[in-house]
């Protein structure tokens, strides 16, 4: 099926199953521990040995020698993998650092060796006996000092419209400020883990990846073997946030170790290792300049972004939201990239938008203050129904203003004191903040298979994954709606690499793309059934477990009485819709904080997210996604920062004790409202994604609430008390 024009009326519009807040279909499996995650798949293959990774002790340099003698003699050791016996290692298309160091070391905790032993304890004990001599080289680890040498990448051209310089220079009201966002860690609850087993020249992996198609593209390249000799299974994933997008070091190392060990190898990256071993969200420095008229209308907006990474690797493109967010005739967006020798930076939940909006949405708060306007009003004044960079490119849907209005009403925005520092309860200063949210509503070609058996059970198979998002449930709902059956009569099977290829769980594309694939497969199943039963075209419906045609009601399973019906279809998203429409999901975040007037302790008291994101396929799982994202936003605002030791070139706080994410005590009342919306230009189910939208803007809303509470502006995340305590009003 091709998707080239807006979706018309279709069976999903019945909304009998879709749009209902169903519990997760795999929920009982998860809460009873019966859903096995990669490391727990004890029975998939016999004789699993245990791999333990030895991480490099330097950030940059060469391995002079590795002494394995003592480790080899240790109890239970089967084999030790190093670059010496690994064979050739190639490079995938997503991660640029090698999974295995030697002789070059590219970053701290890059694997130097994997010790394989009969038990985890033995592997770990022996790993501690591996002695490595290094020749340490100097590296560059600090973005602020590397910024001067940052260069333009061909893949990230400057975006200039109108005459920014002149318009900014002559604007009556000007804001010019620099904001910084730190390196952040995905810190999924489930560490990266893989079981690898060779069967001759075939490789089986039980692993944890978000996009199997990318993992299947990249791992064979790393291992220099044909794709069709690899199978991956990843049905349950304990969080990814971009940290498991493709095949990461755990899969390559397990496969290589299994080859040298001659037996299946099970390997998980320890929490203390994975922070520097895998990937993170790179830090940014962002200069935002906004020139406005006295009425608040933006005349010029400039967003300059500096970031860093290993050569050729990912670019954190903070300017991504800027062209689409607010109106304004004169615009400039640039990104410059420095080469850093830190661990590799990569995608983390809402790459681009998340760090970009951390800056832009504080800037809008500052602009509001310069104008003496309400922060919501400034955003409304600059709202637009066409792409600010191209007036002939209307938004498919854009309900930002509606989100702000509804949120303002529901949150009690009118109670916010316009003057900062004006509201006090005991020793606590109280403030409210707001921020807009925007995230691209993109899709990618995705396929699914649909099976109908004689009992009337419809089984869906696709390599789509569920990383905790609710994919199992929304795809079951989509199939049930299409086939006119209940959720109990649908089975969804995900995460096997030999299933039809989908987008995977990436970039907020999963819900729209994969539900579209299920729509396509079920459409084909409906057609096939009608043909097989010789029903008249145009007079066939699927209702309440029956095929209804010409007054006849045939139980659905009857259609498969002679044998299972199996169909497959791919939904190909053409360039037509994005070309015709600017496609974005929108939202607004509201936050109330209390800041201790003496100590600067910050406590978030209330949060509200209002989202307009197309059809919400399941309000319950969507709400969970947004709440999780809001929680991540609180971490980004207040505590999350990978601390760099610039002498040694590594992230020092590489565990959950040192890298503080928001915990229950930090998260008070959270509310999520979805604005009614269908967007037929995105996908046949008319849905967009919400999982990243829920994060974008949250940190700025927190920052703006802190300013409203205290009158102190902090432009460097995370906003911790040592950055502003001495600027708080004097304590009596």
């Amino acid at each position, binding site marked *: 099926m091709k998707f080239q024009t807006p979706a018309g009326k279709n069976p999903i519009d019945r909304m009998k199953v879709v749009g209902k807040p169903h519990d997760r279909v795999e929920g009982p499996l998860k809460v009873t521990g019966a859903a096995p995650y990669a490391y727990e798949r004890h029975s998939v293959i016999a004789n699993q040995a245990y791999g333990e990774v030895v991480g490099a002790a330097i950030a940059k340099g060469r391995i002079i020698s590795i002494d394995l003698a003592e480790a080899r003699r240790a109890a239970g050791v089967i084999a030790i993998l190093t670059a010496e016996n690994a064979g050739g290692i190639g490079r995938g298309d997503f991660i640029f650092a090698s999974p295995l160091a030697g002789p070059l070391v590219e970053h701290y905790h890059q694997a130097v060796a994997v010790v394989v032993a009969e038990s985890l304890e033995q592997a770990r004990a022996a790993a501690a006996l591996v002695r490595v001599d290094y020749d340490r080289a100097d590296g560059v680890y600090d973005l602020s000092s590397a910024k001067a040498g940052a260069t333009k990448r061909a893949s990230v051209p400057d975006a200039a419209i109108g005459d920014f310089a002149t318009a900014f220079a002559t604007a009556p009201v000007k804001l010019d400020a620099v904001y910084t966002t730190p390196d952040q860690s995905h810190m999924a609850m489930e560490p990266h883990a893989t079981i690898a087993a060779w069967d001759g020249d075939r490789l089986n992996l039980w692993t944890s990846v978000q996009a199997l198609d990318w993992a299947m593209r990249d791992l064979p390249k790393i291992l220099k073997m044909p794709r069709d000799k690899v199978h991956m299974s990843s049905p349950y994933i304990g969080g990814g946030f971009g940290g498991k997008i493709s095949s990461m070091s755990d899969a390559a190392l397990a496969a290589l170790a299994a080859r040298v060990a001659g037996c299946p190898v099970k390997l998980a990256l320890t929490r203390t290792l994975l922070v520097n071993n895998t990937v993170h969200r790179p830090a940014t420095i962002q200069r935002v300049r906004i020139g406005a008229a006295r009425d608040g209308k933006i005349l010029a907006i400039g967003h300059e972004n500096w970031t860093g990474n290993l050569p050729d690797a990912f670019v954190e493109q903070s300017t991504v939201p800027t062209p689409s967010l607010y109106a304004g005739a004169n615009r400039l967006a640039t990104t410059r990239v420095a080469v850093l020798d830190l661990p590799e930076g990569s995608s983390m939940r809402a790459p681009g938008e998340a760090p970009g909006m951390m800056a832009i949405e504080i800037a809008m708060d500052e602009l509001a203050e310069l104008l003496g306007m309400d922060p919501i009003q400034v955003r409304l004044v600059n709202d637009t129904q066409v792409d600010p960079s191209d007036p002939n490119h209307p938004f498919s849907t854009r309900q930002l203003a509606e989100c702000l209005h509804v949120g303002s009403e529901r949150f009690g925005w009118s109670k916010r004191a316009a003057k900062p520092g004006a509201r006090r309860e005991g020793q606590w200063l109280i403030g409210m903040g707001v921020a807009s949210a925007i995230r691209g509503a993109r899709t990618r070609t995705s396929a699914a298979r649909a099976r109908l058996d004689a009992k009337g059970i419809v089984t869906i198979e696709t390599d789509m994954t569920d990383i905790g998002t609710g994919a199992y449930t929304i795809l079951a709902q989509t199939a049930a709606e299409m086939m006119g059956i209940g959720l109990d009569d649908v089975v969804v099977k995900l995460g096997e690499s030999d299933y039809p290829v989908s987008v995977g769980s990436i970039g907020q594309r999963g819900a729209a793309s994969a539900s579209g694939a299920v729509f396509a497969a079920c459409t084909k199943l409906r057609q096939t059934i009608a043909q097989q039963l010789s029903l008249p075209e145009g007079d066939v419906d699927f209702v309440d477990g029956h095929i209804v045609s010409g007054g006849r009601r045939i139980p659905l399973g009857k259609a498969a009485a002679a044998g299972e019906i199996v169909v497959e279809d791919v939904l190909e998203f053409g360039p037509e819709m994005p070309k015709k429409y600017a496609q974005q999901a929108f939202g607004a975040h509201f936050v109330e904080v209390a800041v201790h007037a003496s100590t600067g302790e910050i406590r978030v008291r209330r949060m509200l997210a209002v989202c307009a994101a197309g059809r919400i396929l399941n309000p319950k799982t969507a709400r969970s996604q947004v709440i999780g994202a809001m929680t991540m936003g609180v971490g980004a605002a207040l505590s999350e920062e990978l601390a760099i030791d610039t002498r040694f070139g590594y992230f020092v706080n590489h565990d959950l*004790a040192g890298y503080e994410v928001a915990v229950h005590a*930090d998260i008070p009342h959270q509310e999520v409202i979805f604005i009614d919306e269908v967007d037929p230009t995105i996908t046949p189910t008319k849905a967009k994604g919400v999982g990243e939208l829920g994060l974008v803007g949250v940190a700025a809303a927190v920052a703006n609430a802190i300013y409203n509470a205290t009158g102190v502006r902090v432009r460097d995340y995370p906003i911790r008390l040592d950055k502003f305590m001495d600027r708080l009003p004097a*304590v009596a």
Partner: protein
Amino acid sequence: MKPFSYERATSPADAVTRAAAKPGARFIAGGTNLLDLMKLEISTPAHLVDVNGIGLDTIEKTADGGLRVGALVRNTDLASHAAVTKGYPLLSKAIVAGASGQLRNKATTAGNLMQRTRCPYFYDKNLPCNKRDPGTGCAAAGGYSRGHSVIGVSGNCVCAYPSDMTVALHALDATVEIMQLDRTTRTLPVRDFHLLPGDDLPVGEFALKPGELITAVVLPKPVGGKQLYHKVRDRASYAFALVSVAAIIQPDGTGHVAFGGVAPKPWRSDAADAALPRGAKAVTDTLFADATPTDQNQFKLTLATRTLGAVLIDAKAS
């Protein structure tokens, strides 16, 4: 994890005897700190003597009206004991400010005293650390030192002591009962229990000889007053203190105050206590006169004054 041997002791004397028989032996009670360190091979004891079955798990009144807390009383039980919430609310508040419910259920009184530092360089075996590997140096000095000590440090070690409970015990003038190798008992003011790093290696931490066993913590008679514990951290729960203040404020403005998060042990002095009636700044000026902060942890000095200021306001208001 390195192989080790393990046995259970049946009484305090039995524990001391068993530990003495095996060089390098360590006692294990709740294990909430030691097991983590063993998994990371930062602590590698060859032998563990499990003391969970030796008694010492009761809280009793002493003859002079104080309280004797057995070494194996769990943190949760201690914090919620009626005699503690009534007579020593400071101790109860400090304990509840630390760790999580699950950890407090498992952690013991003596084990809490014996907590090792949470310095990230101590935890990363690739980096120099005199506390972990004497003579290798201190990576934290000149490194990521935001959470480290501002006073009481040496060139050998700049780490901070993590316990909340012990900060309260300092303000409460508790004493520690220790069974010696000859099975006799000695007592030590809690103020003298933790050692500062100094110029010698290995870095001293606890005034315990190998094989000695903590049997109890003894609290003097309740002193009344407003008792407040204010722990400042980067998130609302489950983090170690940037700065904490344990304060006992009497109606006349006198009292005791101890600070956590600022030094290799809870930090207090009689002179600083004497300055309490003159306000927070007078106390911290006295107590931190010899501070040697880094650029990254300089803020702790301001924060200490501000936190004590907040506590004094709360003491007036409550």
